[in-house]
C-alpha cells in the first residue's frame, strides 16, 4: 500500500502548511498594532543595512556547487547499498571506480584552494 502512504504524505504536508500558517496569522490578528516608523525600521545597531544581497562571499557559492555534486554522488551510492548482496564483488569494484573519480575531484578542489577559508 505504498501509494496510500504517499498520498498521506501529501495530505500531511498540506496540513502542516495550513496549520502553521493559521497559527502565525492568528497571532498576527490577536497582536496589538501600535506601529511607529522607528519600530518598523530594520535592526541596525550602528551597521547600516546592505542593499539586498550583494555581500555574499564567492566561497558560499563554491560550497553550494560542491554540495550539489557530492549530494548527487552520495545518492547514487544508495541503489548500490540496497543491492549489495546481489551485486557482490563486481558491485564493490564498480563503486570503487566511481569513488576514485569523486576523490580526484575532491583532491583537485583542495589543491586549488576551493576548500580554504581564511
Amino acid at each position, binding site marked *: 500500500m505504498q501509494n496510500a502512504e504517499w498520498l498521506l*504524505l501529501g495530505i500531511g504536508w498540506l496540513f*502542516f502548511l495550513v496549520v502553521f500558517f493559521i497559527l*502565525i496569522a492568528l497571532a498576527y490578528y490577536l497582536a496589538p498594532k501600535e506601529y511607529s516608523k522607528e519600530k518598523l525600521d530594520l535592526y541596525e545597531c550602528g551597521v547600516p543595512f546592505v542593499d539586498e544581497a550583494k555581500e555574499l562571499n564567492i566561497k558560499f557559492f563554491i560550497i553550494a556547487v560542491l*554540495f550539489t555534486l557530492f*549530494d548527487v554522488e552520495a545518492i547514487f551510492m544508495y541503489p548500490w547499498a540496497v543491492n549489495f548482496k546481489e551485486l557482490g564483488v563486481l558491485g564493490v569494484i564498480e*563503486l570503487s571506480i566511481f569513488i576514485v573519480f569523486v576523490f580526484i575531484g575532491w583532491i583537485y578542489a583542495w589543491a586549488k584552494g576551493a576548500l580554504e577559508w581564511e
Partner: protein
Amino acid sequence: MLIYVLTGAIKLLVVFVLLLLYALFMLWFERKALGFIQIRIGPKLVSSGLEGLLQPIADMLKTLWKEDIVPHRADKLVFWLAPVIGAMFPFAAAMAMPFGPPLKIGGSYFYLSVVHVNVGILYILAALGLTSYGVLSAGIASGGNKYSLISAQREVAQMVSYEVVMALALLNPILMAQSLDLYDIVAMQAHHLWFVFYQPVAFVVFLICMFATAAIVPFDLPEAEQELVAGFNTEYSAMKMGMFPFGQFVTILVMSSLMVIFFLGGWTGPIWNGHPWILGFIWYWIKVFFFVFLFIWSWGTFPRYRYDQLMNICWKILLPISVLNILWTGFALIIHIPMI
C-alpha cells in the same frame, strides 16, 4: 485504501499533537537543564509545585498576544512564508519517524508512524534538507539586515555541507541491512549486534553531523549572539519567531530517533527479544531521549567553533573519512570480516 488513509489521518493528528506537546516540554526541559548545568534554578514561578512545568504554556499564550512587527523594508510574502517553511518540514520529516516498535495485531503489523514508506530514510533526509529554505527565506526577506543575511548564508552552507556527510555516514548501516526502510534496519539489528559495534566510525561521524545540521552549540555559528545578534531571525517577533525553535526541537527529535534506529538498535534492548511490546517501546524512548538530552547537554557545555574550522571539519576530515569508510564496509562485507 480509504480506511488506510483515514487511519493515517488519525495518526497524523495524534502525531501532530504529540509533537506540539513534546516541543512545549522541550521549552521547559531545555531551560531547566541549562539552569542545572549553569547552577541556576531555571523556571520556577509558574506552577511552583511542578518545578515550573507549566511555564511553556504561559510562554506560548504570551507569544500569541505579542506585537507582531514586519519591518517596512521586508519582503512581506517571503517574510510570512519563512517561519511556516521552517516549522513545516521538520514536522513533515517526523511523519516517517517511528514512534515505537510495530504492534502485531493478528497477522498484520500496525506501524507507529504516520507513514511507512519503503524509502523512509531518504524521505527524512529530503524533508530535513528542505528545512534550509525556511532559514534562507528568513535571511533574504529581512530586507537587507546584515545580521540576518550573514547568518542565513552561514546556516544554509553549514546545513547542506553536513547533509552530504550525513547521507554518506548513513550509507554504512544501509549497506549492512540492504534496505532503506527504517523498520527493516531495526529488524536487522535484532538478529545481530547493534550497528554501532560494526560501524563506530560512521557512528561518530553521524553524531557530529547531528549537532551540525541542527545548529546546536559546538556548531551554532548561525546564532552566534556575540557577533550576529540573534541570527537569521533577528527581524522576527511574536509567533513568527517562535516557529523557528519549534522546528529545531522537532529536528532534534527526528535526528535522535534516526541515530537510535541506525546505530543503537532502535527498540531492541540488551535483554529484549520482541515479547512484551511495551518493553521495546520503553527501550526506544530511553535511547531517543538520551540523545535529545545530549543536545541540551552540549548546548550548556561546549564553546563554539570558528566558521572556517567548521567547514574544514566537514570538507577536509569527515568527507574523506566517510567515503573511505563506505569502501571499507563494502570490502569487509565481501570478505566477511564483520560477522554478517
